[in-house]
């Protein structure tokens, strides 16, 4: 494990990605303490003022300080996306372990359902489910988590298929170990590297999806300072020359997503090594 850490810490992609993620995580946790203004305080007398010495990123349509809102804006997406990924991981690992280990009819049936889910882009299934269930952070977590489940299950299943043919599994079976113990105690620890890679890649895509859904108005709801939501509230103003609320929030989203993908790239490279 320590060798892996050394490799990771030598990977420029991983370190730079992690630094940016930690920066936004710190902003999410302690941003209220060092934001120059109250991110929720409206000021009707100075709405949509361009960037200035007092308001570095300008103010939005309610007169709230854009810089302060960008600082605390990572909070919801950093809560929703990891929780959705975690839900998908737990369900997907269980499903992948079962289908990969038992094969047969269940495996065949689940594979077909996975194909059906994969035949639709995530945003589109999510829109269908969210308009049926109602949009909120909790439903976004559940919907994205459920959509991730078959995708993660597919990766896990492939890894299990390779493992179950190995001698240590046969030995455990001959020792009459209970199946649950073989799955969770023998096979699972051995397939952790691909699961870890899958988790980080999924996290990047979860942030992508949550931001896109928030932009469409089906994700995180007002008055959250969430970046995707802020862009959705302000992109209509661009044509009128009011570019600052949209631009600074899109830059913030980009930095976070690129950072997660850089970290994922680093983890993947060391897992393969």
């Amino acid at each position, binding site marked *: 494990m320590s060798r892996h850490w050394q490799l990771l810490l030598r990977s420029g992609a991983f370190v730079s990605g992690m630094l940016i993620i930690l920066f936004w995580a710190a902003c999410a946790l302690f941003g209220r303490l060092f934001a120059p203004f109250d991110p929720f305080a409206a000021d009707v007398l100075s709405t949509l003022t361009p960037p200035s010495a007092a308001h570095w990123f300008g103010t939005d349509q309610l007169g709230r300080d854009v810089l302060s809102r960008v600082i605390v804006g990572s909070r919801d997406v950093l809560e929703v996306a990891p929780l959705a990924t975690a839900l998908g991981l737990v369900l997907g690992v269980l499903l992948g372990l079962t289908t990969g280990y038992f094969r047969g009819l269940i495996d065949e049936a689940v594979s077909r359902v996975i194909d059906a889910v994969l035949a639709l882009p995530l945003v589109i299934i999510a829109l269908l489910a969210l308009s049926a269930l109602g949009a909120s952070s909790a439903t976004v977590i559940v919907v994205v988590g459920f959509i991730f489940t078959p995708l993660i299950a597919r990766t896990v299943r492939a890894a299990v298929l390779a493992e179950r043919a190995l001698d240590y599994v046969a030995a455990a079976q001959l020792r009459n170990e209970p199946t649950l113990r073989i799955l969770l105690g023998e096979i699972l620890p051995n397939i952790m590297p691909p699961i870890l890679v899958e988790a980080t890649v999924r996290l990047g895509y979860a942030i992508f999806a949550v931001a896109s859904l928030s932009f*469409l108005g089906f994700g995180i709801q007002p008055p959250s300072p969430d970046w995707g939501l802020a862009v959705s509230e302000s992109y209509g103003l*661009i044509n009128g020359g009011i570019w600052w609320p949209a631009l600074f929030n899109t830059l913030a989203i980009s930095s976070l997503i690129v950072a997660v993908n850089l970290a994922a790239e680093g983890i993947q490279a060391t897992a393969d090594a």
Partner: protein
Amino acid sequence: MRVGSLLAKRAALAVLTLWLLSVMVFVGGQLLPGDVARAILGPRAVANLDHQLGLDRPLLIQYWDWISRFVIGDMSRSYAYHAPVAPFVWRALGASVKLGALAFGLIVPLGIAGGVWAALHAGRAVDRILSIGGLVAASIPEFVTGIVLILVFGIWLRLLPVAADWPPGAGALRQVQYLLLPSLSLALVLFGYLARMARAGTIEVLKADFTRTAVLKGLAPRRVLWHHVLRNALLPTITVIATQMGYLLGGLVVVETLFRYPGIGTLIYAAARDKDFPMLEAGVLTVGVIYTLTALAADLLYSALNPRIALGAAE
């Protein structure tokens, strides 16, 4: 003979996938929706409306009624427009095909050229810049790219229109001008994947024996590149293009909304917002059908182009 049976097997799987998809869409559109209207209207009005819309029949019958009509192109009636859904879907689909075609037309040559170029200069600065640029482009959501493009080319440089709503009667060239920014924001996501695949394919072929033979027997480098390397390196790229159709179709919702373009993405978005479930189901299922058929076509094309691959052995 072998090819015929493979084709039949793949087609059967695609039909099965589509059937499962239709069940999912039916469950999402007919079963999950909450009872908000019920609470507002009260039980009697709801019973009347349910009867009128046929929602009081057994679910299996409702499903059969819906899907059997969908297959022949009758997509039931929209709640919001009180009119048949099908004409809306066809018109939107036509608009989206235009946008998607331009997006692919822009990004496929760019991605392949970028990947091959990077492979020919593997390990040098160009290669690193292209691979980092590709990673960044692939990870940023379409609405972010779109807004940056609008700001730079539409507002600051004033080169291109910021919304895809051209005046009626605009010619093809004029329409392309309006569609340039949306198709770029739609397709930049794919640049990284395409370039990466083309790069990997090219590098592999450059190392292959037949390339060395071609070089050693004194063929001009240009000829080796075009006739030996590119032909073989581009095979995997076809699969990537097909699998990335999903991203493209998903991106349509966001990009069309951002640029106010009346395609299938806007249709799905508006239907989801207005809870117009017949329209939403028809739009979502149409996207699923397109994706499944593209994947099937790519599979077959790939096996036709690559004699070494036996499709059945893919599992």
